[in-house]
């Protein structure tokens, strides 16, 4: 402390103030650290257990003295999982499908959210009620209907006209779900619409009005003026959409996964039965020891999570960057 040597009363008060502020900040960061550590530990503990279990040899599983750290480390389990699933292939399929679906969903939902936030039109309340209904209704409710609907797809008799009077079977093709995504009917899309609508409602109208006065068209204003500011919200919608698509079993099993195009989530859900076939060797399924089952499931869960966490780490950087962009706001 340089000021200590020439201690006028005024500077003394200043050092006291600085010390007080420092102490306050230290206490805050300690409390924050404790809280975060506790909650983080709670979240990550099951993941660490999975990691530990996945590296164990089989005999370690039945050794009651081993809890978390394996005594005999092995990577064989990962090899088994890779042979059980069509791993790299299904991962790439999942990546492309999720990317396509989530990009479509986010684009559609952003447009719809903006429409609801900014414009007044007939039946607006009714349509917004439909958005809320979309959030509430779980996909299971409409699954049977959708299934038969796409198995004999014929919208208002149009398809029959072009296809020799026969409806077409759209199951096992990406098309139905792509169409649903492009029209906001994918998984939890009501939520994204609602989120984006709330976001756009919070932005001052004067920005757009200025653009209109300068002769900017509706679409142009939306893309140039509104979208850049909305990026954090749009990105978080994209993130949710991607993650939910990545792990989704429901739509994937019904519409997306085929034997020619395996998807990771369906493979993960059937990993136990695959395992019993694998260990049997000569065709008769055997019952796999439960510990072993757990081990392989743990690996599956880990593999499923890793790409998503990496994606998140990259996206959250953009969250921080966007502060600079939104500086133009009033």
């Amino acid at each position, binding site marked *: 402390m340089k000021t200590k040597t020439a201690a006028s009363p005024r500077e003394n008060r200043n050092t006291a103030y600085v010390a007080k502020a420092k102490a306050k900040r230290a206490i805050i960061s300690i409390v924050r650290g404790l809280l975060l550590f506790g909650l983080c530990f709670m979240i990550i503990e099951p993941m660490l257990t999975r990691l530990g279990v996945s590296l164990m040899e089989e005999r370690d599983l039945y050794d009651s003295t081993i809890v978390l750290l394996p005594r005999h480390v092995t990577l064989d389990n990962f090899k088994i999982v890779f042979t059980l699933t069509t791993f790299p292939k299904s991962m790439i399929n999942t990546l492309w499908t999720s990317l396509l679906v989530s990009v479509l969903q986010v684009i559609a939902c952003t447009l719809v959210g903006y429409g609801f936030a900014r*414009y007044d039109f007939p039946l607006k309340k009714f349509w917004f009620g439909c958005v809320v209904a979309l959030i509430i209704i779980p996909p299971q409710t409409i699954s049977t209907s959708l299934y038969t609907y796409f198995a004999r797809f014929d919208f208002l008799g149009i398809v029959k006209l072009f296809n020799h009077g026969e409806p077409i079977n759209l199951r096992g093709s990406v098309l139905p779900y792509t169409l649903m995504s492009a029209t906001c009917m994918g998984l939890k899309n009501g939520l994204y619409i609602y989120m984006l609508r709330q976001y756009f409602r*919070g932005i001052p109208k004067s920005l757009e009005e200025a653009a209109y006065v300068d002769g900017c068209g509706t679409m142009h204003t939306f893309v140039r003026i509104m979208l850049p500011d909305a990026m954090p919200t749009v990105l978080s919608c994209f993130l949710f959409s991607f993650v939910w698509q990545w792990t989704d079993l429901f739509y994937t099993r019904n519409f997306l996964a085929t034997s020619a195009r395996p998807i990771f989530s369906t493979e993960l859900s059937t990993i136990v039965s695959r395992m019993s076939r694998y260990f049997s060797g000569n065709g008769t399924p055997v019952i796999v020891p439960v510990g072993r089952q757990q081990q392989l499931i743990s690996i599956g869960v880990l593999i499923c999570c890793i790409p998503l966490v990496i994606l998140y780490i990259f996206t959250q950087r953009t969250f921080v960057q966007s502060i600079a962009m939104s500086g133009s706001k009033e």
Partner: protein
Amino acid sequence: MAKKKNARESWSLRESILTFIPGNSVYGTMRSRQARHGVMFILPFIIGFLVFMAKPLIESFIMSFNDVSLVAGGGYSSRFIGLENYKYAFGVDPYFNQRLVEEIPRMVINSLATLVLSFVIAVILNQDFKGRTLARAIFFLPVILSSGVLPGIESQNEFYNMMAGISEEVANASGVNLSAALEDLLSVSGVGGGVFHVLFQMIDAIYDIVMASGIQIIVFLSGLQAISPSLYEAADVEGCTAWEAFWKITFPMVSPLLLVNAIYTIIDFFMKNDNRVMERINELFQRLEFGHVSAMYWIYFAVALAFIGLASVIISRGVHYYED
């Protein structure tokens, strides 16, 4: 003010039809031009809803008034029975009613706790500190782990259930159930029993609550990111304390997202598969009692909708939109 009045004006039937037909006096007005732009923006949703959602929804609604049975070779036959399915849900089914009443207070408490916790965590994660990226990544894990196949995959496993059962037994037998012991202690000393009961219920459910708040944290974070730093600078110059800045800037600016999160949280807790009402509905679904299932779904939707309505009415009062 004039604008506000304009927005509240409702659309008459004649006006709404003429808006979309060129060549009349209404078509050319600013208002109907704006309306057409609005409809253009939400067109994807309208198409999607009509093509994919409307039919299954109506079908399910009709089913709830019918006695439905599967027939061989696919398809089903139905017979109209009026309100019988609803009478069954309320009067005959031994579990539905009871579980509905039991689950609702629990869900309300958990939803509130989730909202508060996720807001606090989002504010913390928005601050600058060492290891922020790591902490954010960890708080993202619940989003992944509570989605799709992942939550079910381990609870289906016998080994997992066995281990969970054992650890619970050990905890009970050795008497290290800290929260129960504390609750006993406090209730003996006569401190407001009801409040503490609720509090301890929350503490016991903290894992569930944290796992359920992944989405909400990110929604709040994205909202916090969008607040312009210049607002805080101005407040600081004017001598605003951090506490005041929080309530005067942070909270109002994020409040539109509070509504989203409240609705999402309520729905999330309502529609979770480990919810005992949903369990009952799924049970009946497996027994192919489609009529009863549809009726129960619709009752359940109505209850969920009532709560969402209540929450949005309460929260909307506190929500601040930049210009409204």
